[in-house]
């Protein structure tokens, strides 16, 4: 009997898709690994609007995204710690989040986020 590795194709199907819309309107739809963060997904796919200076520690506010209004109720609001960091970001709106604090789950398949024109640097 041979051990069968799970088909990578089947795994791929499970990977949620996230669309990043950059400030100039350029859209990138990429696959995200379950359990990773939206910030990590952006870096992996060279989304230029995400800086992530602190590497995901929620201490720099340079991975700001504006969650699409339809998606915001599913993604949910920031924690108080994150909200405090949002104080040091710019162009913050009602649906702004730090992408390092959004964990990728199956429920986020199809998520749309917009990146701001400026992350403070």
């Amino acid at each position, binding site marked *: 009997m041979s051990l069968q590795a799970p088909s990578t194709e089947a795994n791929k199907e499970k990977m949620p898709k996230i669309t990043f819309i950059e400030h100039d309107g350029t859209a990138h739809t990429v696959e995200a690994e379950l359990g990773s963060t939206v910030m990590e997904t952006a870096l992996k796919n060279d989304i230029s609007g995400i800086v992530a*200076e*602190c590497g995901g520690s929620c201490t720099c506010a340079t991975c700001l995204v504006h969650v699409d209004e339809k998606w915001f109720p599913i993604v949910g609001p920031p924690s108080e710690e994150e*909200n*405090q960091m*949002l*104080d*040091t970001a*710019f162009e913050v709106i009602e649906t702004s989040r730090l992408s390092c604090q959004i964990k990728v789950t199956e429920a986020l398949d199809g998520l749309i986020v917009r990146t701001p024109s400026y992350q*403070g*640097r």
Partner: protein
Amino acid sequence: MSETIKTDVVIIGAGPVGLFAVFELGLLDIKAHLIDILDKVGGQCAELYPEKPIYDIPGIPYITGHGLTEALMQQIKPFNPTFHLNEMVTTLEKVGEPSFRLRTDAGKTFEAKCVVIAAGGGSFQPKRPPIQGIEPYEEKSVFYAVRKMENFRGKNLLIVGGGDSALDWTLNLQPIAKRLTLVHRRDEFRGAPDSVNKMRALVAAGHMDLKIGQVTTLEGDNGQLAAASIKGKDTVERVECDAMLPFFGLTMKLGPVADWGIKMEEELIPVDTGTFETNIPGLFAIGDINTYPGKLKLILSGFHEAALMAQQAYHYVYPEKKLVFQYTTSSTSLQKKLGVA
């Protein structure tokens, strides 16, 4: 002009790698001064993740950024380094073979045989708000730091932000300002609760204003601010002001390093991996700011780089002497330096 500080080595950056460089240099009897733009030691460990755990320091399964900084400070204590905090090195020039002269924005001049750039991601500098046309006002009526409070006496001031810097300067400047307005994006503040209470009491007593919103446009002439527009949830309000102080925290910028004539590759400094010297003899770069084939931006890599750098720096500091490699476990002479023998 203050007198020139003469030392063996100046280390630019007091992050973990700059601190450990003091240890490696100290074992070789090389004295060091450290200069850092932050008001505290520890670099990113102190500024970005003081409470976050680090799991990849060899032999230490778990330590916070703050904990690692404390431990390094204890480790380098025997070598009694001199710290110059809250200072940025603005110029660096070669004045000998090798010998360098450095100046800081605090007006200090240093002369050192070797210079070690351990500046990580660059220098932490205030975040500049993306308000269109803000540049002409900067350093004239828009300030990211308060150097002299007296400059703000009798002025209409706008302070922007919700952290301790914004609150502290609100409380300090309110008594001398003509009128002070604090602007913050939400009606909650992350600053110390005591400062928040004091600020709210001043607002309640009518001694200052608090506006919830974001500054969107500036009006004025020749760098002199006249007014700012504050966009609230459904409103736009115009507030007259003579000066604005935005406090949005810090971000890393490469800073003046790029102007020192060092060969650079995309904001990083290429180095020789045997010595961690740059293209200029006696000028070293260690830690996150350097680059070489296989480079990993890890604290542990920076520690290794510091050790090799010190071996090479020895030849410049003590050109007549022969360096014999020794271990701290067995060398009485090293142990004496560490104060344990």
